[in-house]
């Protein structure tokens, strides 16, 4: 009997033990789970409280049930104060209606709130703009808000600026891209109409498009540049250049313009001046053409006739002198016409090709030509003259004139002209010097020297074309010319011309 009992007891003890172990095991599992849960809560708390976003839960009655710590900092109220009153009491009175509407929409558990913005009153009475994302499980609302007050402040500033400033800006709403929804003050003033007027009719009625260039910008926007012509209320014409940014999806636009009216006016003015100049130039070259062809013939005929008279007829006493006068002036006239012809020829040159020209090969023939005519010839040309960039014919003309002048305006017994070079250290633009021992020129007249038909003496024959031509040629070739001279001390011309070396190194 006792043995049976003992057995029974044993069974009981074992069962009890088993129950204890199971209970312990279960307890342990529970403890582990609760620890995990605690860790998760801590993690969430940490996350909620360190995030710059504002997290909260709201009861169906509209009271905060949970608030992350950021709320206190952002609103100025303590968390206890926030939990003590319904949320709606903190909302800006003007935004309460839409806030309640959004909250009731959230009763449908399929509704998600995104980008919902409403205003609140901080403890210091300033406005707080929050942008919300929220969802509900039918019992509570789980919501996250972002403080966008700064954005809003900037937005207000920009709008304010457009309302007072003179910027030319207009926008359209996605609901009606044909009409402006906002017109800046500047644009209102420019078009001479009120915003109400300008927003009442399609904007294409206010501005007439002349040209449009579309530039695809990215996936979201299209940017178009457009030129428009507009008549204002008082009838004056305005030219605007627009930058139109269009949202691809909604079609709403941001349009800003630059006023080109003055610019275009100036451009037109310039065009008319250019036209006038072209006309004048054409008349001039027409004159030059006449000079080149028509004016050349008469002096030749005069000379020819004088010659025939001398050859074929018996000349009475005293008439030879007059025939000589006729011939001299006919020659002078023909020289002037020749000079004019050269000037007009050089003027006409377009797209002159600068080729390497060895000055030695130009000056030697000039020397030979002059020395053939003058028995006691003293033209000295240094053999180390550089190669310059230019045109052989033109440079021959330019240097001939200088040498000719040096010999012509010269009363020395031995008339001398020297041509030599001062090398430039970099050899970009060596200076060529044409020096004579002639009568020299008073510095007072140096400026006049290079003018067309300007003659500084009647003692020597001349037309006043030579130096003008020389300067024109040197400058056309990209060079410079200046002189040093005094009366009775001779003259030095300093000429610098672009060299071959410079060109090849550029």
């Amino acid at each position, binding site marked *: 009997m006792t043995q049976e009992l003992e057995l029974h007891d044993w069974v009981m003890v074992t069962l009890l033990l088993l129950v204890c172990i199971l209970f312990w095991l279960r307890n342990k599992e529970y403890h582990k789970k609760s620890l995990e849960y605690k860790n998760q809560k801590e993690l969430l708390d940490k996350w909620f409280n360190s995030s710059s976003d504002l997290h909260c839960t709201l009861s169906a009655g509209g009271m905060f049930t949970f608030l992350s710590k950021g709320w206190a900092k952002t609103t100025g109220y303590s968390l206890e104060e926030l939990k003590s009153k319904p949320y709606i009491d903190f909302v800006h009175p003007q935004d309460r209606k839409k806030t309640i509407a959004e909250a009731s929409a959230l009763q449908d558990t399929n509704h998600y709130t995104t980008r919902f913005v409403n205003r609140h009153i901080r403890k210091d009475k300033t406005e707080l703009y929050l942008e919300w994302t929220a969802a509900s499980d039918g019992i509570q609302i789980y919501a996250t808000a972002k403080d966008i007050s700064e954005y809003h402040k900037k937005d207000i500033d920009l709008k304010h600026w457009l309302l007072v400033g003179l910027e030319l800006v207009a926008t359209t709403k996605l609901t009606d891209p044909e009409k402006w929804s906002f017109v800046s003050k500047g644009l209102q003033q420019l078009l001479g109409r009120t915003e109400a007027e300008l927003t009442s009719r399609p904007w294409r009625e206010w501005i007439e498009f002349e040209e449009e260039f579309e530039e695809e910008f990215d996936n979201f926007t299209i940017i178009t540049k457009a030129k428009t012509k507009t008549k204002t209320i008082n009838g004056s014409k305005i030219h605007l250049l627009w930058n139109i940014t269009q949202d691809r999806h909604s079609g709403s636009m941001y349009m800003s313009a630059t006023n080109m009216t003055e610019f275009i006016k100036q451009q037109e003015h310039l065009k008319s001046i250019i036209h006038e100049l072209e006309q004048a130039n054409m008349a001039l070259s027409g004159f030059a053409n006449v000079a080149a062809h028509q004016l*050349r*013939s008469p002096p*030749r005929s005069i000379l*020819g006739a*004088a010659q*025939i008279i001398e050859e074929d007829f018996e000349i009475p006493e005293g008439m030879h002198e007059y025939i000589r006068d006729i011939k001299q002036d006919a*020659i002078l006239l023909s020289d002037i016409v020749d000079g004019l012809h050269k000037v007009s020829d050089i003027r006409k040159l377009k797209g002159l090709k600068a080729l390497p020209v060895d000055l030695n090969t130009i000056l030697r023939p000039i020397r030979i030509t002059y020395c053939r005519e003058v028995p006691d010839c003293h033209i000295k040309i240094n053999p180390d003259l550089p190669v310059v960039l230019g045109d052989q014919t033109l440079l021959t003309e330019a240097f001939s004139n200088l040498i000719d002048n040096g010999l012509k305006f010269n009363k020395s017994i031995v008339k001398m002209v020297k041509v030599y070079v001062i090398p430039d250290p970099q050899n970009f633009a060596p200076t060529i010097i044409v020096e004579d021992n002639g009568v020299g020129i008073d510095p007072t007249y140096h400026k006049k020297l290079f003018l067309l038909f300007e003659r500084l003496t009647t003692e020597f024959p001349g037309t006043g074309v030579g130096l003008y031509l020389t300067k024109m040629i040197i400058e056309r070739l990209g060079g410079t010319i200046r002189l040093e001279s005094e009366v009775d001390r001779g003259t030095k011309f300093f000429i610098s011309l672009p060299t071959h070396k410079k060109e090849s190194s550029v």
Partner: protein
Amino acid sequence: MKRTPHHLLLVEDRKQDARQVIRALNKLGWGYIPVDVVEDGVSALDYLFQRNMHSTAERPDLILLDWMLPLKNGIEVLREMRMSPLLTKIPVIIFTTSSSESDVEEAHAAGANAYLRKPIDPKEFEDVIQALGTFWIDHAFLPRP
């Protein structure tokens, strides 16, 4: 055997210049060759194409053509000549006051046989006529007009 040219045409609007040329030719011994003078581009073409007033004109062996002419200028006359098979081979010497390079280029491109400038100096003028006559009248073999 070289054929002696028997007829020159001078296209020259200035009587003085025409006289000077003819005088020089006479003086230099070529007075035996008849020279006809026409004074503008249209008359020159009429003469060459034997039209209108010039329907009985004889085709010349050699033409001295001025550049600046009334109605049609030298280059126009030359171009029309060179387009016609009848006139394309007649030697044409441009004889003008202009020495501009572009005129020289243009004249040769249009088919001129030579380009001479009228010198200012009467002596040089004669020299040019002398050279011209020696070459084109005395030595050159000219095609049949």
